[in-house]
């Protein structure tokens, strides 16, 4: 009996030791090392690319937000409302913690068509000058993460007429703001042209004197 235990002990001693040391190196030293180096060389990015307005954190450059006011530009639909919530929503449990993802509606799912039709109706009501077929694809489809900070430049331009009316800013002012927040294809090859919605709205808020 003792002999077999000793034999088993010998067999598993090596794998246990190897596992332990690799766990320490890969699971602890490596991520801690990365945290340290990242905070020295890229402190802004390592912290989540946060944006401060008057000393409080107002969001992140990389995350979209759910904007309700008519004088702000809108992001794409999100299954999780961009983790944005009001105090009542938190108390009532309507917001139940930080998440990411989409509602995963298949192309043939009737709920998808229903959601797009409903959003389209609401959008056309608020933007009567826009024709149905001029609404870009991305503006009424939900992103994969539910946190997409961008819309396409076309989706930004299509919202401008409505924003002129609600914000009191001129069309050219708004056009300039969109341009400031547009990033084109890199080298004309990689990626897509994007407009950062939070960036646009921060500039609108500044011009309107909201912040």
């Amino acid at each position, binding site marked *: 009996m003792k002999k077999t235990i000793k034999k088993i002990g010998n067999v*598993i001693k*090596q*794998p246990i*030791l*190897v596992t332990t040391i*690799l*766990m320490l190196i*890969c*699971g*602890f030293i490596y*991520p801690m090392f*990365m*945290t340290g*180096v*990242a905070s020295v*060389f*890229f402190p802004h*990015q*390592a*912290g*989540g*690319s946060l944006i401060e307005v008057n000393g409080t*954190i*107002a*969001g*992140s450059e990389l995350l979209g*937000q759910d904007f309700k006011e008519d004088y702000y530009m809108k992001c794409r639909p999100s299954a999780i409302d961009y983790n944005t*919530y*009001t105090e009542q929503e*938190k108390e009532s449990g309507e917001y139940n913690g*930080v*998440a*990411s*993802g*989409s509602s*995963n*509606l*298949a*192309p*043939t*799912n009737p709920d*998808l*068509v229903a959601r797009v*039709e409903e959003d389209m109706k609401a959008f056309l009501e608020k933007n009567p000058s826009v024709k149905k077929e001029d*609404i870009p*694809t991305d503006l009424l*489809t*939900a*992103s*994969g*993460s539910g*946190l*997409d900070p961008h819309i*396409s430049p076309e989706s930004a331009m299509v919202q401008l007429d409505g924003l002129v009316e609600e914000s009191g800013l001129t069309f050219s002012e708004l056009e300039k703001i969109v341009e400031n927040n547009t990033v084109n294809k*890199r080298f004309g090859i*990689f990626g897509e042209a994007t407009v950062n919605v939070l960036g646009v709205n*921060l500039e609108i*808020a500044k011009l309107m004197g*909201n*912040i």
Partner: protein
Amino acid sequence: MFQIIVTLIIYMALVIPMGIYLYHVATYKKTFADSILNGIDNFIYKVGGVDPKQAMNWKKYLAAVLITNGIMVLLGYIVLRIQSIDFLNPNGIENMEVDLSFNTIISFMTNTNLQHYAGESSLSFLSQMIVITFMMFVSAASGYAVCIAFVRGLVGKTKDNMGNFYSDLIRIITRILLPLSIIVGLMLVWQGVPQNLSATITATTIEGTYQDIASGPVAALESIKHIGTNGGGFFGANSATPFENPTIWSNLIELFSMMLLPGACVIMFGKMASETKNKIKKKESDLCEKRFNFFGKEGKTIFIAMSVLFLIGLAICFFAEMAGNPLLAEAGLSQSMGSMEGKEVRLGVSQSALFTTSTTSFTTGSVNNMHDTLTPFGGFVAMLHMMLNLVFGGKGVGLMNMIIYVLLTVFICGLMIGRTPEYLGKKVEGKEMKLVALCIIIHPLLILGFSALALVSTAGLEGISNGGFHGLSQVLYEFSSSAANNGSGFEGLTDNSVFWNITTGLTMFFARYAAIAMQLAIAGSLMKKQRVNESTGTLKTSSMTFTISLILVIYIFAALTFLPVLCLGPVAEHLVLWN
């Protein structure tokens, strides 16, 4: 379209030097970093009591893989069950339940990374680091170690020495995975991936509402997630989340990271195979040729076959996604940008289609768009590549699966033209062919068997979230992903239930270890055989004809096993959609 081509050209330029480096590591040849890394290796050997020179035959090698992985599973499981302790847990995450912990730990040990939880709400930072990140290293390294041992067996320098598992495991981590992860991780932080240990931040928006922003040690996990073709995200939405994949550059970095090592593995194999061949007959012409041939002859056959399969899949996926969704077009929404539901604007259809095809071919399983919302034929390609499980494939396993099909093709072609089936100078006989047949059968058996079980049980049917033909696709995708050790999902499926946790857990376990055991047995058996000299009766496995036969055999076998069920799922959905 154009950006996809440029991306693939850059990939070719990266994969060749990586393949040559991998070959040097696998064969204990000198590399530039030896002076530093030898010291680190020797220290780990000393602490772990490892003698790198101790030879193992295939049975000992397999036993070492199983025991080590078993211990890792046990330790990881314990951490998941006690993660609520107040150490590296700023968000106060609770312990994970029993069946979900079982599924998660099997999932990460087998390099599947199927996730039935959402990282931001179910894992403490301690678990993310010491379980998930650790598992990503060792499961990938175990896979590559087995692959290297398998190739050593095939090219057979000795009769039964497959190398030393512990030494392979450690060297792959210190020489390949760890240095690459540090470089790639820092590049990702530079692009905007967070790397910190702070709790979820609540921001006050300019409208006076609140936004919760979850972060953590993301970049450290994100780099090894792709380099090790693991694929499990820090956040629920994986690489679609801006914090995991903030820009087009981070997207390209992640793509290259996951494509690099599986491709390099093929080059390593080609070089190891041609090395033995050249030793046997040192013809000058052969050596001359070698100088211009990065892949080695045998490697080239496989690399071309894999590339052809990949490009066909990519083209189908891209054009299917570009065509958009006709139901939305009917509702009046322009589809000029392609099918954008479930995709990110910064990545668009091109990079999404490329990522989807790559992640299922290289069996990574990370996603930068939601696969459930793919058009039927986009989803078809993703599913097919996991069913094939050999279009490059992840962590060395793809190469082994491909060689199983090479053996099959050698056998079939040999029978057709009346030549002795030989591969790399070894006769392929009844014993090997039986194992090859078993190896090929286990994959469809797991996928179709469990899918059938899910479809006849209420517990299985309860998971389906999309009706009609797509519901079948959801079930099929989940088991294909588990059996291919991929880990992506049609995420609409409500999969965190006892039924789904246990069935997929078992699928992942058997798909990984049964295949590895049989493949090592095949290599072990070929290893013992006498080398036969090439004669006029030998079927050349380095010719273009053979490559084409190989591709056809793969497609025919896939069609025979999976076509009926694919017709009922994605193909039927396509017909309904475009009616």
